[in-house]
């Protein structure tokens, strides 16, 4: 077990720092999402807000290079890594329809995973660690002296998933399911009734170590990749659930979105960087 943890730590450190001496298969997915978003942020209101969200994101998958010192031992044979970058904006209204929130969310993450393959590589199962940073800003339209709520969370997560490839007459399909949940991390929220005048002079707030005892994140996605003769597309559904708080402060986000993505598979030539 310790050996595996050591391998994971080394992988985190080595990524991107080695010279490329081999061709690598790289998968890139550019996604747009449209969905519904529920949010409760007691920092700005005790009422829940619901509304639409729209976002764009990029996701890339790549096996680790095998020409590194670790790779040549064969220990990286079933290891790959994934990275994501997402931006989303949303507009929400409370249940009384008396106030609105506009928000912006940014998130980025990177993880390494180990995979197993069966049935002529048609079924693939993977698990691994994933590190994610999230930043959210919310603006409540009719608020006085406290118009913005900011939060930042950094999480080390457990990631897992599986994919199943199957073939039609002219099209190949791959059904993917991925799930991530937080293990340990750090989150920050501004002090409860701090005015924005005070925030201007330095944000004071609650920064703390987070884990399953005080912070719950589950993100999962079900998607179907369709490979046509000249292009590959993804359609799917994503669900994100985030729930954390301290004292009177509580933040909950629950969102479901439809995802449409365009997939590129390309090969990175030896001694070339992205």
């Amino acid at each position: 077990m310790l050996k595996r943890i050591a391998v994971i730590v080394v992988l985190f450190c080595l990524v991107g720092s080695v010279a490329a001496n081999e061709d690598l298969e790289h998968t890139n997915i550019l996604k747009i999402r449209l969905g519904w978003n529920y949010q409760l942020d007691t920092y700005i209101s005790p009422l829940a807000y619901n509304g639409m969200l729209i976002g764009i994101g990029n996701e890339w998958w790549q096996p680790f290079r095998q020409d590194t010192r670790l790779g040549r031992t064969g220990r990286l044979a079933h290891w790959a890594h994934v990275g994501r970058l997402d931006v989303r904006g949303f507009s929400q209204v409370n249940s009384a329809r008396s106030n609105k929130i506009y928000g912006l969310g940014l998130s980025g993450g990177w993880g390494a995973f180990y995979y197993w393959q069966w049935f002529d590589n048609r079924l693939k199962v993977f698990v691994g660690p994933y590190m994610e940073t999230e930043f959210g800003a919310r603006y409540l339209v009719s608020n006085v002296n406290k118009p913005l709520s900011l939060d930042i969370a950094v999480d080390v997560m457990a990631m897992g998933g599986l994919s199943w490839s199957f073939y039609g007459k002219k099209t190949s399909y791959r059904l993917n399911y991925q799930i991530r949940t937080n293990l340990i991390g750090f989150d920050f929220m501004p002090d409860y009734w701090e005015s924005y005048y005070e925030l201007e002079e330095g944000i004071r707030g609650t920064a703390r170590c987070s884990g399953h005892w005080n912070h719950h994140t589950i993100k999962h996605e079900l998607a179907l990749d369709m490979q046509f003769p000249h292009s590959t597309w993804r359609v799917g559904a994503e669900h994100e659930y985030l729930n954390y708080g301290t004292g009177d402060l509580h933040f909950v986000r629950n969102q479901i979105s439809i995802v449409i993505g365009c997939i590129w598979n390309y090969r990175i030539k030896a001694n070339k960087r992205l």
Partner: protein
Amino acid sequence: MKILKNIVNCFAFIFTLTACHPSEEISFSMDPVENVEALWQAIDTKYCYVESKGIDWQAIHDEYITKAALLKKDDPVTLFDLCAAMLDSLHDGHVNLYSDFDRSYNTAWYDNYPANYDSHLQSLYLRDYRIAGGLYYCTIDGGKIGYIYYNSFSNSFSSSNMAWILASFADCRGIILDVRNNGGGDITNAYRLAAPFFSKSQTIGYWHHKNGPGHNDFSPMEEMRLDASLSGGLKWNKPVVVLCNRRSYSATNLFVSMMRYADLSTIIGGVSGGGGGMPMSYELPCGWMVRFSSVRMYDREKKDIEAGIEPDVLVTMQSSDKDDIIEKAIELIHHATKQK
């Protein structure tokens, strides 16, 4: 297909697990008791003066919950009036209730004070004026004194506006800065207006905010500093007299408080209106918004400024043909320059 079915089932199961909402959320409701209770709770846990004003807030709860229980659920106007009456007991100009059809307000903080301002009498002085940003200005007393009237700290101005004004007053012996009937606005403008009258940056007060449900739960006191460089290098080295009255409220009250520490300043007129509690807002189950003070502000001696600032020279307007406060300010400037 079995794998596909299992994956979809798994997705649905996890979604169901996370679909329940937390207990902190309050649901939309027009129920009078629920809304009065939520309003009472909001003030009880978040309003910063429950203790210091000596309000028996529990007795108010008992009185108004009983009244709310008698109200019909489909009568929002009566519910609004009841909530407004409950808030009125705080005697705070920063406390308001906002609905789609009305906004409650309290006038007790200035009702029993002399007006100390008459726009007709003021117009005898504020003639042939110019307007730079939100500032009205002209010279009076034969060009010997500069006069600035600022009616709202919500009206912004730039350091360039101030530069023009001070340049036009270059030959004057002093400035009268009139903030009477200025109900406040943006604190940033208060700092910017005060900056040219300070030769160096300094502490002008302290503030702290409610950070817990107890009546005395406050964050540690933080220093409020006036940054002299806000003026962009502009400095006024001659006397300045600040005119205020009871309706100089909120950000104006803070401005009056900080101007006491300016180099050559004198505060005259009536006691300022107070409003030293910076307001915040919160929502009720029916969607109405309540505004209330939640940040307490103090002067440099750590004295609460909620009740207002006593002027250096108390002047009450009595004449019907001249503005006694402006006349006193002119006299003070001439007196100060003669002494020099």
